């Protein structure tokens, strides 16, 4: 088994490329056996963070520890981490077996062949790619390639796994399957994982904790629930939830009484209630998603998205009324930072979570 405390620690780590600061004074600890997902848009520094942990980049300042060892300037080979790349990066001139055996044959490990074979077969069984071991790595489907790439990381039993959007090149169906499988394997092995994605679904379902990055800074870190229900800023609130959170000026939908200094109010689409009184709204667009329906409305000059049950039939052009579920509003100040909602008149009514009419 791996070392006793397999954790990744960033201490005030900064990485600059020329004039661009890719990672800005990052401090983050991925605990032993913890699955941390870094979420952020392109260019937020997610991948650079992973590459710093892997040793593919050296930070300008700060330190990085893996399993208690300071690896800030250690070459990748000397770090006990495995990397799963977005593009699989299977060695095309090798078979699946050779790909998976490759890390074990490295000069830093040099296992004997019998031990390698046993290990590769064990992991192949875990990932259900046993039948493909003698295939050339190029003669695989996308899902199989990604399993092999994950397998190549697993065979080593490293202190930590670094995964850079490993599922992003797969189609939706496969991505869902592998996501579930990845979580199962991580829980079975108790593996420490630092995982990068821009897919909020992956982040919500896989993570023990989500770290939201913006422009190289760690904006917020917390459990998926915390990040979703108590985002630190407008930026974080917008990263999670589909359709996106409604951002309205204070006073819209009758939400006048926010805490002092609030300029923007955020309302999740699922907390918008239609046809039960409130502001007058006109339906602009209706998107049926199957189980749910997204309705875009205009009310008092603001566009409002609502997520309602499939039963709620609305038509474009229809007039209705819109209000929000009491106690669900998020208030933000001028700089986009969230303010704690002072107890307001909204909180009087018991929250009723009924979708639609």
């Amino acid at each position: 088994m791996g070392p006793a405390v397999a954790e990744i620690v960033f201490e005030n780590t900064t990485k600059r490329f020329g004039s661009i600061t890719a990672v800005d004074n990052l401090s983050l600890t991925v605990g032993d056996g913890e699955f941390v997902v870094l979420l952020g848009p392109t260019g937020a520094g997610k991948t650079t963070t992973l590459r710093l942990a892997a040793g593919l980049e050296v930070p300008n300042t700060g330190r990085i520890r893996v399993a208690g060892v300071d690896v800030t300037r250690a070459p990748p080979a000397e770090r006990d981490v495995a990397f799963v790349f977005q593009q699989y990066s299977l060695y095309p001139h090798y078979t699946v077996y050779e790909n998976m055996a490759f890390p074990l044959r490295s000069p830093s490990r040099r296992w004997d062949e019998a031990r390698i074979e046993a290990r590769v077969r064990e992991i192949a069984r875990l990932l259900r790619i046993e039948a493909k071991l003698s295939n050339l790595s190029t003669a695989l489907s996308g899902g199989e390639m990604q399993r092999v790439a994950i397998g190549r990381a697993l065979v080593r039993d490293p202190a930590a796994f670094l995964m850079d959007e490993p599922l992003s090149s797969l189609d939706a169906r496969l991505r869902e399957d592998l996501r579930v499988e990845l979580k199962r394997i991580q829980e079975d092995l108790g593996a420490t994982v630092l995982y990068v994605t821009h897919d909020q679904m992956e982040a919500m379902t896989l993570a023990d904790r989500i770290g939201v990055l913006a422009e190289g800074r760690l904006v917020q870190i917390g459990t998926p629930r915390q990040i979703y229900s108590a985002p630190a800023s407008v930026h974080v609130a917008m990263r999670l939830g589909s359709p996106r959170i409604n951002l309205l000026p204070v006073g819209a939908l009758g939400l006048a009484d926010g805490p002092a200094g609030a300029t923007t109010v955020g309302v999740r689409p699922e907390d918008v209630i239609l046809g039960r009184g409130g502001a007058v709204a006109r339906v602009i667009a209706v998107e049926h998603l199957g189980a749910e329906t997204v309705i875009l409305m205009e009310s008092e000059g603001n566009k409002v998205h609502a997520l309602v049950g499939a039963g709620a039939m609305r038509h474009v052009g229809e007039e209705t009324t819109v209000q929000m579920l009491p106690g669900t509003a998020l208030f933000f100040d001028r700089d986009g930072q969230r303010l704690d909602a002072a107890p307001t008149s909204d909180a009087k009514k018991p929250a009723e979570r009924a979708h639609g009419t």
Partner: protein
Amino acid sequence: MSAASTRSVLEPSPWGQRFAALLVILYALITMIPLVWIGLTGLKTPPDAIAYPPKVVFDPSLEGYVNLFTARSRQTPEYMASLPPPTSWYDELVRKRNMVITGPSRFAERYMNSIIIGFGSTFLAVFLGTIAAYGFSRFKVPLKDDLLFFILSTRMMPPIAVAVPIFLMYRALGLSDTHLGMIILYTMVNVSLAVWLLKGFIDEIPMEYEEAALVDGYSRMQAFWKVVLPQAKTGIAATAIFCLIFAWNEYAFALLLTSGNAQTAPPFIPIIIGEGGLDWPAVAAGTTLFLLPIVFFTVLLRQHLLRGITFGAVRK
């Protein structure tokens, strides 16, 4: 529906394909005829070789090859009559022309020189080219673009334009008429081509492979050997063929810088003409043998020239 409607719009029509095939065959015929003629001439007797109208059907003879590999001297009929019976088939062949074999010719030696210099310089050019191309492709090299342009600029004039300085330099350095000198010269000419060709190939190998190898526990050098080189095989093979063809066929410098010791086959083959009349079969035989290594080498590496196998495991 007709068969025509089932094919993709990008695919040429059956008639188009036939026309294309016809063009290729025609082109092949035009380029092959001189080679076939040389091959045939090598198997003719000297009178057949210069017969007019040219003979297409003839009795094959190995006289050209015998003449190529031997030095002979013409004798009087009286002397010929006084000789004991010939001991071998090639002795007999030569005596028919009132000649005796006085020893081996220098062709084998020159041929060997060609092999040493051609393959030696090809190996060096590809070796240096691969390393340089990898460096240019993967590292931040100061003045990279200028250096690459400078490397390419060495090919902007025919190499023979600098023949005089090289001749003087080689004489001063004692490199004239040495194998080493010729290997260095051909390597110098080829390395620029090798760097440019190989840089293109190595640029196409995604960095992720090496990074994966680094994380998997390998050093940069080991990653280069285990991951980059196997994938650059195709490019290396193609580059090697180009380099070899240049070094193998080079005539002007070989004529200028070599004479007794390191002379290669190209300047030697025309000399054969002078030995005992216009011996076209011997020249043709020499040319045929001279072509074989290139043909062999190209066929050997042909499978690597077919591209596209290595690309696909990294999704772009």
